[in-house]
């Protein structure tokens, strides 16, 4: 309907193409890029350079070592399971925190961030103690024949614990902004509660959930402190990538360590980039672009 042609005016020669209203663009972007270079790009390029020094053949040999490949599998599967669990549980937590009023809500909200604040080693040791055969949870679970500590399942538990705030904190604000009228409209049109969730709430929450899940997954890939204490670390079964890197470091094989590290980093970077691109497209559609 809107006639956009009218708003397009011919540009006058000599006038700079973009005149920004907000000042400080040059400075703030400069500081940002400088900082990112210092703390991110420089170490990363160091890593790449270090790795590049070893040559393709050796690189390939190191990163395809059967024990390392087994650790990829364990790590990726565990991280996948943990982030899926977090998507469900995190959504539930965010829902409870946004939609209901109950005593202690503020406290619960604050506790949500605890996994970030807690040193990961402390988390790992605590979880290992709780889930060990004599621990509070472990004893109970043992009755059903479920072993958590020192198995791949333990890795999942540790990963889920350390990364759940990612999902809660990305979903929460989106849920808060959701107008209650949307749900009321759907219900007044005859939709059941489940339909309202599936057709109205979920499509709006979906991007945030994917972002949260993706962050949770990326964090889990690199988790070390919490995992090593509960994983048991038996080769080919419950060794994670970060442990493999640490093992190479202990052997003073820095090149091999950085080779494995670069694989993890590359995977994480690709994943985060993909999520960003996909989400950009999805949100554009919601906000009026012709997606």
């Amino acid at each position, binding site marked *: *309907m*809107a006639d956009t042609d009218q708003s397009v005016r011919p540009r006058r020669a000599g006038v700079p193409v973009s005149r920004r209203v907000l000042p400080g663009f040059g400075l703030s972007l400069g500081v940002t890029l400088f900082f990112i270079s210092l703390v991110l790009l420089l170490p990363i390029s160091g890593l790449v350079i270090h790795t590049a020094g070893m040559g393709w053949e050796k690189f390939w040999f190191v990163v395809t070592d059967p024990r390392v490949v087994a650790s990829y599998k364990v790590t990726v599967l565990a991280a996948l399971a943990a982030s899926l669990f977090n998507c469900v549980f995190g959504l539930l937590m965010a829902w409870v925190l946004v939609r209901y009023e109950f005593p202690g809500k503020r406290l619960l909200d604050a506790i949500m961030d605890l996994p970030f604040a807690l040193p990961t080693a402390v988390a790992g040791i605590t979880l290992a103690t709780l889930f060990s055969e004599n621990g509070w949870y472990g004893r109970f679970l043992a009755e059903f024949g479920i072993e958590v500590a020192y198995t791949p399942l333990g890795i999942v538990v540790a990963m889920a614990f350390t990364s759940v705030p990612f999902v809660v904190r990305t979903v929460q604000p989106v849920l808060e902004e959701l107008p209650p*009228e*949307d749900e009321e*409209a*759907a*219900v*007044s*049109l005859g939709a059941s509660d489940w339909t309202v969730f599936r057709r109205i709430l979920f499509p709006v929450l979906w991007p945030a959930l994917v972002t949260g899940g993706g962050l949770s997954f990326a964090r889990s890939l690199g988790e070390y402190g919490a995992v090593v204490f509960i994983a048991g670390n038996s080769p080919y079964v419950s060794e994670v990538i970060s442990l493999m890197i640490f093992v190479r470091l202990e052997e003073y094989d820095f090149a091999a360590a950085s080779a494995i590290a670069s694989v993890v980093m590359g995977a994480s970077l690709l994943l985060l980039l993909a999520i960003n691109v996909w989400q950009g497209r999805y949100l554009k559609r*919601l906000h009026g672009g012709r997606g």
Partner: protein
Amino acid sequence: MTIEIDGINKSFGQFQALRDIDLTIPDGQLTALLGPSGSGKTTLLRSIAGLENPDRGRILFSGEDVTGLHVRERRVGFVFQHYALFRHMTVSENVAFGLKVLPRRERPSKREIRRRVHELLEMVQLDHLAGRYPAQLSGGQKQRIALARAMARRPEILLLDEPFGALDAKVRKELRRWLRSLHDELHFTSVFVTHDQEEALELSDQVVVMRQGGVEQVDSPLALYSQPESRFVFNFLGQVNALPGAISGGVLRQGDAWVRLPESCDDDDAELYLRPHEVRLTQEPSRDAHLPFRIEAINVIGAEVRVELRPDGWESQELWEVGITHSAFNARQPKRGDRCYAVPDVGHLFCDHLSEPKTLSWYEAAG
């Protein structure tokens, strides 16, 4: 479908939003719930829809008690103030939603749904926007889509919450006319909430004036305007000129101003209310009224010239406003600061000891 509201009460914490509302909304008519903000009109509308559960009282649709019925079973169409369109669905998906969520045995076939959506979009004259997303529509278009969506299941009751509140004046007027003609064509029972008295009077068959959670007056627009039952309704519906004073010996007096009442009245404190068209402006006071003014402002835009008057030698809370024809204005050419007198033709007297106002006419007395 007739809607009967029987002794509804609703509180939010300490705040009583609705108190003892009894109301009948006739079948096939367009009823307006009119009142200032906080008067409970939206709460009443939401209670009819089932989006709000009253603490006490019953709601009946065609004699059938629906108080305990969930929103989704009441089968009413509800249009929200801010449209509440589903952002992630296209216009046609939005309109089809009510049909697609029907239980399988009631749900029309896919082709039938497509046909119905097409029909509804034609009804709101927006068929060409079927593939757009809500973010790509203007406010007026969104409102019409919201209406089409609410009508998808052919509800017999349509409820609209401030349907034109968020639109600019011109679109508003257009949409108002369009809703009126749609209603005349389809004859559903509709109730809409508004705080705009002009909108309520122009659009509806019946107006319910609400105040502080209660019903103040229910009447046709004409009756409401010509025979308001209370000072509140009088004040709320349009411009009003007031002469507060005291009656003694059949004369209402305050300062230099006095009006001889055509009917006998007990001595009491009273207030005379006059609409701008119920007053004439003259150079000299009449036999029955002495209401001196100074002209404060003159507005020539519109069908009438509106003259604002400041009481001279007496007081009223607000300036008076009187309308005179353009030809009368041109003949006399009054200027700001001129002294003039108001002569009432018809007035409404609110005596402190009477609950109902008395409508007075000076025509016979003058004749």
